[in-house]
């Protein structure tokens, strides 16, 4: 039975969008029932909630899009639900079905002011607690919150809204940290949080009881800015989200726009994009290696990682002109053709990388101290990572096969023979080994592609002004640290009505609480380092 027919049976009032992707609109009062049925379906459980995208449809009201995927069959569906009441916007919470909804619903509340009934923790997540208004709403006054130099106080209580039997909405106070809790503050300016993340951790002796991440210290409002930019202009922002997945992020956005506008890109451009993605992945994983080791107190391997990383940066710089921020992918192809000796240098690099990887393992992987600090620490089970939506290496370390390159191939990944690295332990060591093995696997992919780049144009001509047809569009790629997805809602203009990025890091930061509970405070750094999040990507 088709999934749409199944939903039609459960909810007779549903409608399917005709343009763009098949968005299934469900009335708010029957949404919760449908979500439960889909989540616990026997044949095709929709147990991976990819993202919740808050939306402001003006007079139609506020609402959200739910992107779901089944971890069994990898079918994807999109649900939409909305409420017409803008002043008191309430939607049912799904945080007990998918754990990742806990943080995603807070994001929707922060930006749109949508309150979720029965969500245990309705606090702001990115903006200051005394922020006035909801910035992603279309009627938000951009000058309503001037720079406030007062220090921010964080409340220890939070709100939960629930429905009384008679239909009225009531509010109850929940406690984040008790007065008796011993709370220590880590960040926002801390060298081992990989950016400006702040965590409040309550301790019992040395054991972590709870972690409350506070994001938003680098929230730049990229999604709101994008709404006033034309499609080619929006490309500039993607490199600055997760700067260690710059190529992949931009690849996703280009793919999404090309898919929507019906632009076919040449085979050559596909190959170049895929090669660049893999180079970027090696670059990111080398930096991961350097940082993990440095966070755990070893300095020598840091120089190893950066030695090889500089080689990749040299190769990229020759072709793209940039070291970190490359701005290489464009709508319709890539910015410039590859340099004449690009292929030779990549081949040399692969050969070199294979010869030095032994040093990497000799100095750190086999080390007794490293093993004791990583093995069995910060374990996440397969059920937990799926529910948390922790994609990428973190998910694969727990045995969840979630590689977008395998299950939803893009670029030329369907022409390449590669294996998805999977571990089952789910501890820090497995997460570390995943990245090390992926470096070698990326070398294999590169080797298959580098000699077969077909001749042709590297960029096809596009119209000077790109307009997308009405509807919702999305495209996802496997970035260096998980599934990165671009969701666009277009109303037929040259600017997006709403542009949302699925952050790869937000679910990872959310899983810190689950991974750290019961571990020692000293292990928090190792767990955080192996989860491998990049904070500007979380805050956007």
């Amino acid at each position, binding site marked *: 039975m088709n999934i749409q027919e199944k939903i039609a049976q459960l909810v007779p009032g549903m409608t399917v969008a005709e343009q763009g992707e098949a968005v299934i609109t469900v009335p708010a009062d029957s949404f919760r029932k449908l979500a439960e049925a889909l989540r616990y379906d026997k044949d095709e459980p929709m147990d991976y909630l990819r993202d919740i995208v808050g939306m402001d449809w003006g007079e139609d009201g506020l609402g959200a899009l739910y992107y779901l995927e089944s971890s069994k069959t990898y079918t994807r569906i999109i649900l939409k639900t909305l409420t017409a009441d803008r002043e008191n916007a309430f939607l049912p919470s799904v945080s007990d079905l998918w754990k990742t909804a806990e943080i995603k619903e807070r994001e929707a509340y922060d930006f749109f002011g949508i309150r979720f009934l029965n969500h245990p923790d309705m606090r702001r997540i990115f903006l200051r607690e005394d922020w006035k208004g909801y910035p992603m709403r279309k009627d938000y006054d951009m000058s309503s919150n001037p720079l406030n130099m*007062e220090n921010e106080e964080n409340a220890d209580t939070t709100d939960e809204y629930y429905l009384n039997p008679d239909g009225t909405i009531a509010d109850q106070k929940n406690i984040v940290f008790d007065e008796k809790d011993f709370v220590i503050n880590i960040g926002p300016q801390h060298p081992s949080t990989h*950016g400006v993340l702040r965590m409040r951790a309550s301790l019992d002796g040395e054991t972590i009881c709870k972690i409350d991440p506070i994001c938003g210290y*680098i929230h*730049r409002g990229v999604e709101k800015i994008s709404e006033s930019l034309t499609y080619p202009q929006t490309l500039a922002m993607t490199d600055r989200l997760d700067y260690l997945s710059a190529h992949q992020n931009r690849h996703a956005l280009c793919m999404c726009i090309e898919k929507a506008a019906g632009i076919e890109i040449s085979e050559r451009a596909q190959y170049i994009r895929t090669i660049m993605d893999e180079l970027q992945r090696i670059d990111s994983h080398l930096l991961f290696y350097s940082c993990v080791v440095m966070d755990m107190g070893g300095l020598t391997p840091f120089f190893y990682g950066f030695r090889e990383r500089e080689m990749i940066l040299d190769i990229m710089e020759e072709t793209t002109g940039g070291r970190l921020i490359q701005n290489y992918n464009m709508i319709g192809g890539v910015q410039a053709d590859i340099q004449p000796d690009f292929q030779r240098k990549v081949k040399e690099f692969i050969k070199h990388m294979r010869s030095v990887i032994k040093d990497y393992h000799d100095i750190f992987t086999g080390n007794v101290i490293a093993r004791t600090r990583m093995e069995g620490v910060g374990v996440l089970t397969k059920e937990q990572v799926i529910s948390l939506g922790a994609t990428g290496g973190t998910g694969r370390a727990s045995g969840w096969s979630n590689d977008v390159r395998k299950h939803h191939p893009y670029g030329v990944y369907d022409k390449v023979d590669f294996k998805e690295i999977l571990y089952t332990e789910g501890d820090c060591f497995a997460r570390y080994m995943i990245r090390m093995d992926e470096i070698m696997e990326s070398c294999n992919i590169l080797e298959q592609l580098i000699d077969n780049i077909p001749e042709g144009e590297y960029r096809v001509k596009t119209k000077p002004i790109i307009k997308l047809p009405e509807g919702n569009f999305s495209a996802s790629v496997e970035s260096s640290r998980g599934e990165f997805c671009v969701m666009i809602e277009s109303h037929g203009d040259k600017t997006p009505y709403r542009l949302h990025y699925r952050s790869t890091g937000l679910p990872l930061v959310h899983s810190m609480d689950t991974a750290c509970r019961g571990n020692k405070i000293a292990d928090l750094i190792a767990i955080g380092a192996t989860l491998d999040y990049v904070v500007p990507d979380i805050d956007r």
Partner: protein
Amino acid sequence: MEVKKRTAIRSMEYGDFKNNDYLEKMVDELNRDGAGVILTTIDEVINWGRSNSLWTLNFGTSCCAIEFMALGAARYDMARFGFEVTRNSPRQADLIMVMGTITYKMAPVLKRLYDQMAEPKYVVAVGGCTITGGPFIKSYHVVNGIDKIIPVDVFIPGCPPRPEAFYYGMMQLQRKIKVEKFLGGVNRQEKEPKEEK
């Protein structure tokens, strides 16, 4: 595809390149009528030491911080210039290196860290975001230039700046420190500058 005529890259005229030598000129002007030999010599020694052992407080919020890490690695090796010691406490740092966008939520934290540093202290603003807000200038949550919050000594433009640009910026800061007066001449009555003939 036909090859288009390339637009020439416009570079600066050599004469336009201001290498901040007003710093040394200013010192020459002040010393024109003579200065204490002992005190200025001690000053020079102190400043030579200070400028070659700058301890940085790393305030890396985004992309530029990764380029700073590349500075620390073997190829660019910032130990050659004497600022390889990075501190994570403001109390031990000489300068704060702000790398990355400063948002409204971060601004009070940055100000507080700056206030906690001991005098003499310097601020280096790295990257387009810290200088003006960069690509995010129209955002509702981004400070348009950290000079609105704290005084800045050196701006290093770029998105992110290349490691060489970091060095140029840091060397400008070293020059600035080298011409400072610690002992002699602080309260000295300045003579009117003579008319140029």
